């Protein structure tokens, strides 16, 4: 168990950032998109992102929304760039392998919506790991 010498536990401060109006809306949006509990997503964000990135989440999500995506329907639906570059909750390599998986499924004839749902489940698994 590691303790703090100089720094304090930043979890309450980070939580305060995440529950302000716009951040809360965004976190709930992402949670419903990935179909995972809000608390779980909040905990993941608090553990993996630093405070300034948490503050900047709505602006980054907005930038992801306005950027014209040119890499296909599946990538947009899965949030390939959104969840790696704009809101960096997943490493690029992990996202790439999920994306390849989903694409493979689409090629074998599974409908896009179903394949994307499978991809989202994979993302959820990756976040829980």
């Amino acid at each position: 168990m590691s303790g703090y010498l100089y720094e304090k536990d930043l979890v309450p401060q980070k939580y305060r950032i995440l529950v302000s109006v716009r951040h809360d809306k965004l976190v709930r949006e992402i949670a419903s998109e990935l179909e995972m509990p809000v608390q779980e997503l909040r905990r993941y964000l608090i553990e993996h992102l630093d405070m300034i990135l948490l503050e900047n989440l709505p602006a980054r999500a907005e930038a992801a929304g306005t950027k014209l995506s040119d890499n296909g329907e599946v990538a947009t639906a899965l949030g390939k760039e959104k969840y790696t570059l704009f809101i960096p909750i997943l490493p690029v390599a992990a996202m790439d392998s999920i994306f390849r998986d989903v694409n493979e499924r689409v090629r074998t004839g599974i409908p896009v919506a179903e394949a994307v749902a499978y991809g989202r489940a994979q993302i959820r698994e990756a976040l829980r790991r």
Partner: protein
Amino acid sequence: MKRTVDVNIPLGPIHPCFKEPARLKCEAKGERIVGAEVELGYMKKGIERIMKGRPWQEVMFLAERVCGICSVIHNMVFIEAMEQISSIPVPPRAAYLRVIANELDRMQSHLLANFSYCYTIEHETLGMYLLDLREQVMDELERLTGARVTCAYMIPGGVRCDMPRHNAEILSGSLDRIERDLRRYSGMFADGPMIALRSRGVGILTKEAAQRAHAVGPTARASGITTDGRLIHPTYRQLGFVPLSRTDCDNYARVMVRFDEIIQSISLIRKCLQDLPKGVIRGGGVCKGGETRYSGEAPRGELTYFIKSDEYGRIVDIQIQTPSIMNIEACCHEMIIGADSIADVTATFVSADPCIACTER
């Protein structure tokens, strides 16, 4: 993404180069920076929580105190948002006076930012010149609004006090003096060989990275993105405003963009003084209920207020998105990475003009 590294160099919260407390944790490989994290929490006052449920007359003063450096623009954006909600018209003379106050504020803020940068790279002479020039701008701001900082100049439907003609003459005289000095100092910065060694090619923020982090203001304009909130503002459109940009993407470009913008501000104020319409400065009006999103161009970039008010003009919900949030984020996650030494880290951090009070509110 958080990683565990073997060398972690903390800077702050109290650091000789930072005006405000922030904790910058640099992950280093030798002396080369491979990543950085900013931990805040030293300035969190919860101003948005205080604002909730209070009447606009009170929130107006609270909004000003989100940031003491660029207080005029916070006042302006909040008041114009309330005007948009309750459709209060602004008399043309008041609209021009608002632009003058806002541009004077931008000048002093940019001069302070460039002073901080010069001070950080240890060019104290130029820093002191700029700080002295800033005092002259502060005098003009005080003559126009009645206070140096947090002047609460704008109110719904107009401004608080008029500018008599002799004050306008004094202002245009000082603008000439300030411009002459400023051209000399910006020339010193542009041509200084030692300054170029410390600034050129340091702290590169590419256009893609700037778009990803939603960088705004001079930080974005130094990376070749011509975004400026003043383009959509009606008074600035009357004045024929055209944004500036540079494509060097480094510390040097960011400081030079600020110098150029000060000169641009001077010409905007001159134009305002030239066609300053006659008439009343307060039109009056009643603040009503509604919901809006309103943006304005602060000295550091795009400032957005998300406001929801009730029928008596009380604030129900408010969220402020300040430019420093985006710029500091772009700075610590994109610019600093790859810096060759810790000395460059502080210089790069200051070049993005960070304002922690804005960021945490």
